[in-house]
């Protein structure tokens, strides 16, 4: 997947999230709803950071850069997953979340530490 195609997919994903969450048209978006961008590195066998702290009500875009493998990125509780191709970052749009903990993991088997390659998004009120 090249960078252009990734961008198209991410834009489509962002649109789908807004539509699904009832946030409606771009004209209705407020400054407060602009997504926060969080950079994450995926490298065998960890995500850095592996704990991502967010405020509730704040949409976020994770920019995940894989350094060494086609890792997977899966947040089962949110039904979000994608492959992380090495190279340009993969952008993962996440709508505003309720307070809580949302575990994520690499779900493409990547070697002897694969089972420990996971993390948590911690959303506070």
């Amino acid at each position: 997947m090249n960078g252009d195609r990734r961008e198209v997919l991410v834009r489509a994903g962002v649109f789908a999230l807004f539509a699904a969450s009832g946030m409606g048209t771009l004209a209705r978006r407020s400054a407060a709803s602009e997504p926060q961008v969080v950079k994450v590195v995926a490298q065998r066998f960890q995500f850095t950071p592996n704990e991502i702290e967010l405020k509730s009500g704040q949409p976020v875009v994770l920019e995940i850069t894989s350094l060494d493998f086609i890792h997977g990125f899966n947040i089962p509780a949110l039904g979000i997953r994608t492959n992380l191709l090495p190279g340009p970052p993969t952008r993962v749009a996440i709508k505003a979340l309720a307070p809580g903990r949302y575990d994520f993991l690499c779900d493409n088997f990547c070697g002897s530490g694969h089972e420990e390659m996971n993390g948590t998004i911690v959303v506070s009120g």
Partner: protein
Amino acid sequence: MIDRRRFLQLAAVVGGAVFASALPGSLRAAGYEEFFFVQLSDTHWGYSGPANPEADTTLRKAVASVNALEIQPDFIVFAGDLTHTTDDSAERRRRMTEFRGIVGGLKVRDVRFMPGEHDASLDSGAAYKELFGETHYSFDHKGVHFVAIDNVSDPGANVGEAQLQWLKADLAKLQKSAPIVVLTHRPLFDLAPAWDWATRDGAKVIDILMPYANVTVFYGHIHQEHHHQTGHIAHHSAKSLIFPLPAPLSQPKRTPLAWDPAQPNKGLGFREIEAEVNEARYKIAELQVTKA
């Protein structure tokens, strides 16, 4: 089969519970004969770590225990993760060769293998195929159709469209009432996706199996017994021969259960699966690595 049944009763007493699939119906009319086979799983040959300091002896003990069974099974199945993964392709082949040499000591010569993600995910099954053959296949035994499904050669745990079409064609020759046993490594259903205990397109496999009335799945991967139904299809996971893992989602991380030097084989084992004509269809007897 009186001796065999008595043996299973004894096994239940000394080795663990006998679990029976709750699927009704006699299969005598279908030409189904009683027999039993042994399933071993997740031997992880080459593993070294605190979860099993005796990792270099457990497999040999299990082979000796199978050879010591009073009645030998018709065949033996290894349900994946024969070896522990390594990035070194030469080391991977060395581990597979050693594994093959050890299990070559089994008295029973009919031994069926399947890959796990530790064997096959890093090279799309290349080394496995060199040493053990195809990663998916089917065979018939005494009226039961066995299908081995590969859900590990793709690191993303996809069975894939080509294999799905192969499965559909393989089953198409059977009557809808035919007894079918599916052998695979990962669970075909979403047991615990948060722990990667799933097959990404497993629902498509189950959709293909669903029209068949008598389907039972035996798998590995999760290093413990687990029993689940998707509709009329029963899924039974096996213990491992390396280290036990916690119950699904019972703790924050899927880290192995701590080694207990006082009980080195705790949580490990293999199983016998008896195909029955009457009562339940498959009786499972869980056995310890070595007799207490």
